[in-house]
């Protein structure tokens, strides 16, 4: 069987469906599969911010959900909260609040964050309990499984899985390397 286990690739290409920051024609697209309750994702959060700042318009950052509900009981609902915020155009505001408050991901906290970023609260509450966003989160998860996501966070740089350390220096170097490659 022709399965390249060594460099898994993104099975679901980045599209308009995704939550993205940065230009669509950026030299590098960095995709993160993450879980809002995962401490390693929490650690990677400022790393990604720093890389975005360094790379500017040459980077597009995409976040997809990969909640491991089995070990993180709030991860699924937190992911749905981000999707419900996205329905009101505020995905990234919610995304940031979730990673900045990983200890507070109960529904009552999510409700507070929704108020804080100015979401229409009745709609948010209804969306949070609706199947639509749970399904959307699940779709992300399935795409991640097919792509070789084996834990969180997992990064893909221009659709190829990044297997290195998730610290600033190595990840930034890999992103810059991909940008250089693009230029050649």
């Amino acid at each position, binding site marked *: *069987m022709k*399965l390249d*286990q060594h460099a*898994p690739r993104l*099975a679901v290409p980045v599209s308009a469906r995704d939550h993205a920051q940065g230009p669509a024609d950026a030299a590098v697209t960095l995709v993160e599969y993450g*879980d809002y309750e*995962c*401490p*390693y*994702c929490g650690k990677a959060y400022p790393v990604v911010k720093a890389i975005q700042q360094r790379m500017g318009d040459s980077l597009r950052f995409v976040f997809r959900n990969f909640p*491991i*509900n*089995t*070990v993180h009981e709030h991860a699924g609902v937190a992911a749905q909260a981000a999707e419900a915020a996205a329905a009101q155009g505020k995905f990234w505001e919610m995304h940031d609040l979730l990673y900045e408050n990983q200890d507070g991901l109960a529904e009552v906290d999510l409700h507070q964050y929704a108020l804080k970023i100015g979401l229409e609260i009745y709609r948010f509450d209804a969306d949070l309990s609706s199947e639509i966003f749970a399904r959307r989160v699940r779709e992300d*998860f*399935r795409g991640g*499984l*097919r*792509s*070789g*996501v*084996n*834990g*969180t966070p997992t990064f893909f740089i221009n659709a190829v899985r990044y297997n290195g350390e998730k610290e600033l220096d190595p990840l930034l170097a890999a992103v810059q390397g991909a940008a250089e490659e693009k230029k050649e």
Partner: protein
Amino acid sequence: MTSTQENDILAAGTRAPDFDLPAGPDQRVSLRSLRGRPVILAFYPADFSPVCGDQMALYNESLEEFAEYDAHIVGVSVDGPWCHLAYAKDRKLKFPLASDFEPKGEVSRAYGVYDEKWGTSKRALFVIDAEGIIRWSYLSPIDENPGAHGILGALDEMKEHAA
């Protein structure tokens, strides 16, 4: 490390050796009892590895996907039934973990995935078809969670063949 013939991981096309192992203090799981549907065997070195990259937790989360192929998954390590029970409870696992405990590593050896040096199973995956033939196998680096994409790819291919 030496790699002798008998130490090699069983390849696609081989009949999967049957086993009958404890899966918790008062249950058993045998390959024979799962015949008639695809079986995923996930050998792993030890219960209780770091949480976020935990392979068994990932598979637990993937059960819905495996179910779409009517596939059953069984985890196998040399940990005893009580250890498996504690681990399964902690990670809320909803699939059986078999104890390759007595004689230690016998099944892992039969599949060519026993690590003599460490006295544990290696990290390896097998996808076995409904007739009991191995259709895909993969030996993973010990410290790398191999994820589920290889398993799903193999199940896809089996489905295409059947169609």
